[in-house]
């Protein structure tokens, strides 16, 4: 198929790039690799939580901190994307979320500190309105509520950890209720709960049961992010009214309802605004002629399908969605066929401690200053291909809490470059 521009990927970088192109009234197709990174990682959008992986104190003003980082580390993905891309991309994203019907809050000038499901404070920049009341910088007491039989959120553990780590820590308590109709012996997930929350009667009964256990005035109530899957804004507002206390959601481990809401809505909104999606056809190779990519190949049912675009954004994230292919010794980039890393034994790819800096996470595509994939000498492999998201070499947001911001900045910049090159 022939098209003006093609974006490959399903994470936030890919969606940002596709939106930026669609908004400029250019034709774009999105080659979707399956439900991957977005779904795991984006309950909130973190721009820069810690100045470096070892920092003890969280960053207050992520916009300013990124500017400092760009100055100090010229090969950092943020530096490659540039500050205008972060700013332009964030502005676009906030408008987009509103247009798509999602209510989010935040600015680049300030981080909020939200509790995770295990009770660690985590700095985030843009957050769903349903999580905002969880800000740990506020002083009002917190009641955490879990559900009997739901294994992905233990309010007692989260409360104990928060008490330990949070300044006014003695003000966190934990309760548990039985979710109506959920037998504690049955295995259920946040998705099951979220679907039930879409039912008004269920919500009212949950609110009743919770209220009976909550004591004290001026408390706010935190519960796992299960307040609805599709009409979450409505579910949240209605539940808060029924409960009579301020409510905040806490993102859970996959399957993360919060991430699914975000992903599903943005993907659908792209389709509604004319972006064509290619499902079930992973892109896995590129043809380069005289320094330009003439097509990428998709694995469709029965045969390889070429997509011929004038420019491409490769916004893949990681090993799972096909950005990199690993054999026993070699790690390769499937698009340009390069060997990216060689290891005598695969264990060289991992650090001893799971919390350590992981060598595999640093692997990726070396890029030029315009985000084109680069060869060993730093020259572009193809003039009209631009890389965004986790596939960029040295893109490791885990310690610094910067995944969302890097995705937005690189996705936006790559889209701008691609449109100029097409």
């Amino acid at each position: 198929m022939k098209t003006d521009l093609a974006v490959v990927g399903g994470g936030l970088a890919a969606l940002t790039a596709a939106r930026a192109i669609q908004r400029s009234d250019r034709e774009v197709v999105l080659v979707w690799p399956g439900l991957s990174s977005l779904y795991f990682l984006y309950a909130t959008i973190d721009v820069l939580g810690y100045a470096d992986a070892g920092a003890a104190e969280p960053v207050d003003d992520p916009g300013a901190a990124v500017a400092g980082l760009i100055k100090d580390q010229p090969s950092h993905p943020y530096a490659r994307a540039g500050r205008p891309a972060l700013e332009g991309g964030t502005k676009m994203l906030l408008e987009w979320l509103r247009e798509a019907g999602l209510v989010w809050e935040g600015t680049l000038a300030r981080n909020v500190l939200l509790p995770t499901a295990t009770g660690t404070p985590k700095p985030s920049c843009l957050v769903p309105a349903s999580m905002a009341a969880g800000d740990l910088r506020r002083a009002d007491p917190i009641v955490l509520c879990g559900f009997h039989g739901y294994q992905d959120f233990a309010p007692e553990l989260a409360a104990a950890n928060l008490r330990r780590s949070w300044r006014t820590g003695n003000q966190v308590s934990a309760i548990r209720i039985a979710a109506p109709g959920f037998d504690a012996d049955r295995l259920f997930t946040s998705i099951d709960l979220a679907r039930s929350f879409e039912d008004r009667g269920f919500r009212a009964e949950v609110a009743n049961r919770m209220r009976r256990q909550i004591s004290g005035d001026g408390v706010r109530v935190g519960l796992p992010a299960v307040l609805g899957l599709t009409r979450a804004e409505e579910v949240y507002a209605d539940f808060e009214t029924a409960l009579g206390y301020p409510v905040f959601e806490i993102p859970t481990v996959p399957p993360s309802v919060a991430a699914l809401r975000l992903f599903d809505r943005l993907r659908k909104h792209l389709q509604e605004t004319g972006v064509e999606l290619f499902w079930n056809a992973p892109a896995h190779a590129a043809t380069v002629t005289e320094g330009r990519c003439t097509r990428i190949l998709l694995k469709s049912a029965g045969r390889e399908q070429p997509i011929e675009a004038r420019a491409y954004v490769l916004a893949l994230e990681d090993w799972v969605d096909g950005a990199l292919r690993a054999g026993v010794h070699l790690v390769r980039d499937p698009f340009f066929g390069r060997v990216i890393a060689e290891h005598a034994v695969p264990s060289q790819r991992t650090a001893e401690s799971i919390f350590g800096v992981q060598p595999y996470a640093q692997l990726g595509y070396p890029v030029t200053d315009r985000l084109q994939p680069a060869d060993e000498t730093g020259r572009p492999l193809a003039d009209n291909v631009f890389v965004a998201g986790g596939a960029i070499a040295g893109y490791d947001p885990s310690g610094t809490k910067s995944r969302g911001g890097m995705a937005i900045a690189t996705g936006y910049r790559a889209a701008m470059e691609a449109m100029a090159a097409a």
Partner: protein
Amino acid sequence: MMTEDFEPVTDTVEEQAPVEACTKCTACNTVCPVARNTEIFRGPKLLGPESERFRIPQEPSVVAGLDLCSGCKLCEVTCPSQVSIQTYIRRAQNKGARERGRTLRDFLLGHTRLLGTFGSLTAPLANLGNRNPLLRWFMERFVGIHRKRPLPRYQFLTFERWHRRHPRPVRARRKVAYFYGCWVNYNERRLGEMVVAILERNGIEVVVPRQQCCGIPAVVNSNTDLARKYGVQNVRLLAPLAGEMDIVASSTSCGLMLKHDYSHLLDIPGAEPLGARTYDICEYLWMLHEAKELDLDFQPVPMRVLYHAPCHLKSHGIGYPAMRLLRLVPGVKVEEVDEGCCGISGTFGVKVEKYDLSMKIGSRLFAAVKAAGSDAVLADCETCRMQVEHGAGASSAHPVEILARAYGYR
């Protein structure tokens, strides 16, 4: 000119996507329309790759809950690791059914050509019977076909017989073989006539080869053995043609069987070259357009239509060729309704114990169709069309019908 054609990297571990490729991410479970609508279904992750580790060919199958899988394949569409979830579930279903014996209903629903031959020979009677409440009560009670499910109408003149009398075009720049499938042959001959008309209008001679049922009805009725038998016959009948011409299918699932499932699910030798030359009709017409061979002399068709992408169309991995074609026709306003699976999944929603579930799955689509309002809902798959008509009270059509109208076909 310097050309570097980068060969796809082969890496056995990921290319073949064995059970080990499953990262346990649960993405598949979150999109499974059945798991979304009934808590008793354990979902594709558990029934596919996880159970597969415990399936031992010599031991009797554990089939609890397996037959609730409707076969929509959305799990595979969503899995980022390309795990063959459906292949595991389908083969296990088949083995279980072989051990326990197959029910009369599943036998009938799997033998579409048998039903079709009978239905079309007795067409007026069969159609009357299918709408007779007493008979429907009887069918529900003794066969297990839900009495509220409208059954397709049969037509006396089959597509095969119609085509035998259809005059060949005098001049054609190329030939294409048409896999019309049981639906067009027994139930909607008009769709086949339109496909022929459109292709002929574009200077293409339509060859109608002898063919067997594609086998999808058998697959979804826990009988991959029978599907394989049909598939082998089709490969024998069609593979020689595939050396000379492309093959087009107007039923989404027939096309997917030929393209993909013959070689992957059913392991039929020689199926790959056939699959590589099989196209969905809209995919094929779009190719003609890109090659500047599609006649664009369209009359305006002033219609507001909604497009529903069938799950199996997503599985083709070809994007939305129908939407692209429709945008070429002046007057047509087309919007996509993306509310996921319609719920019928072939014969799934026909069954007495699954009808309600099937309607529940489709309820989001029905609501969206009703809210949007339109002149027609377009879908490439015939059972999606049946479901949308039944559930949303909308009229429906295959997207090529709009093209046929734009060419002045009545």
